[in-house]
């Protein structure tokens, strides 16, 4: 019961901040909550809006699939081969901490305008955390697990399936959760510059045309979707950790 009250209090506090921002900045920057929700519902009901959603979802799914496959593979390789892991980990870590938005002209010059540039932008943001988390998971597998597998004379396949996979899965899921968020961010940034479609395009277009109502509503939809997806993945994450 107290939990519900607390959650409600946080929600009210956020809405209060929103009102405060509107009160300070005025209608030329942001629309107040009720009006925004009305416009968001109107957008969700209009036929013009959904093609943009699908454009973003499509680019995001491509980018996420590539980030996950490349990230996990690279993480496994670098985790298993300790020397390469030590050589490449700091390089990857420093790539993670640089502003990748500056690389956007490069991406555009290589991939041109459109879907592939958006996907590439999502991948350069999302792949690194997946790689780093997988690498750390493999590197930190307790020695006692591998020794037990050897003592029980498990075949390589059995070792991989019943010992190594359960040991690294929770970390990989954490990495995928962060990769998920950053891929989404990357795709949206990509859409802001490299596209005429998608939610990121709607945001930047709204900003340029001073269509405050539309921009605020799209931002609310994007933020809500991101928070909900993160919540679901967080649940999966905790579930995987408890299972092991």
């Amino acid at each position, binding site marked *: 019961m107290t939990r519900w009250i607390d959650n409600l209090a946080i929600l009210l506090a956020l809405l209060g901040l929103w009102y405060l921002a509107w009160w300070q900045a*005025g209608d030329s920057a942001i629309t107040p909550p009720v009006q925004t929700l009305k416009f968001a519902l109107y957008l969700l009901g209009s036929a013009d809006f959904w093609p943009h959603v699908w454009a973003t979802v499509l680019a995001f799914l491509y980018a996420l699939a590539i980030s996950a496959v490349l990230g996990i593979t690279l993480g496994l390789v670098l985790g298993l081969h300790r020397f390469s892991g030590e*050589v490449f980990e700091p390089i990857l870590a420093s790539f993670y901490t640089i502003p990748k*938005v500056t690389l956007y002209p490069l991406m555009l010059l290589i991939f041109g305008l459109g879907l592939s540039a958006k996907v590439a932008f999502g991948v350069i943001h999302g792949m690194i955390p997946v790689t780093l988390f997988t690498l750390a998971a493999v590197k930190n597998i307790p020695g006692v697990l591998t020794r037990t597998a050897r003592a029980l004379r498990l075949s390589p396949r059995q070792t991989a399936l019943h010992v190594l996979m359960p040991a690294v899965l929770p970390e990989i899921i954490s990495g995928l959760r962060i990769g998920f968020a950053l891929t989404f961010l990357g795709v949206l940034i990509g859409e802001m510059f490299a596209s005429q479609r998608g939610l990121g395009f709607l945001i930047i277009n709204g900003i340029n045309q001073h269509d405050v109502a539309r921009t605020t509503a799209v931002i609310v939809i994007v933020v809500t979707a991101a*928070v909900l997806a*993160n919540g679901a993945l967080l649940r999966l994450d905790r579930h995987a950790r408890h299972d092991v």
Partner: protein
Amino acid sequence: MRGVALTRLGVIAAFIALLEALCRFGIVKPLTLVAPSRMVGTLIDLIQAGDVGDDAARTAIEVAGAFVLAILLGVSIGAVIHAIPRLRRAVAPVLVSWYAVPSFVFYPLFIALLGLSEAPLIAIGAFSATPAMVVATISGLDRVPRVLRRVARVHRMGFWDTLRHITLPSALPSLFTGVKLAFAYAFIGVIAGEFILSGGGLGYAIAYAYESFETAKMYALMLLVLGVGVAVNAGLHTWEGRLLRRRQR
């Protein structure tokens, strides 16, 4: 350990050499990518001509402001949250979903609130860097063993003495992780903000060079941004290593 470091240098050198070769032999068009040697040359020219000074100074002020603000806010908010368990449970969902939200969507709002100057960019950087510091502070305070807290109470240590001799030593590793992340996020936030919406700073200069097809200048500036980012991160990393080693002695 030396082998690892040498191999790492070798890998980086090989990568740069590959880029150089690709550009020199015309496999990659000069409009797409500029040879690394030319990037460095252009950068030196730009610096000597005094063309980057203003933008670099502006970015440096913004990043430094955001970084310091994030650390101050992060540590104080983290300490308050840690002290009140109910508050901690309540804000946990906000903290875990903070980085799931693409923060740049709030840029226009900051500009409307704070005007077109350095202030909104400092706010943007602090906005994305503070939660990392909050989380690091909370987990750092969690790491202070209860026994040590009791020791402090038994010895009737004052607030500052407890902080210096009990709290900080245990919380330091986690705090330092927070500091490193805070820098990275402040830097990313400021550059991205300048890139997307500002009228000055290195991020803006890169976007401007791109739009006016000054490819060589654009790459020189990108090199500068990436170089500064990597250098500061490496510096913080080394400092962290030294601090932690001194503690172990």
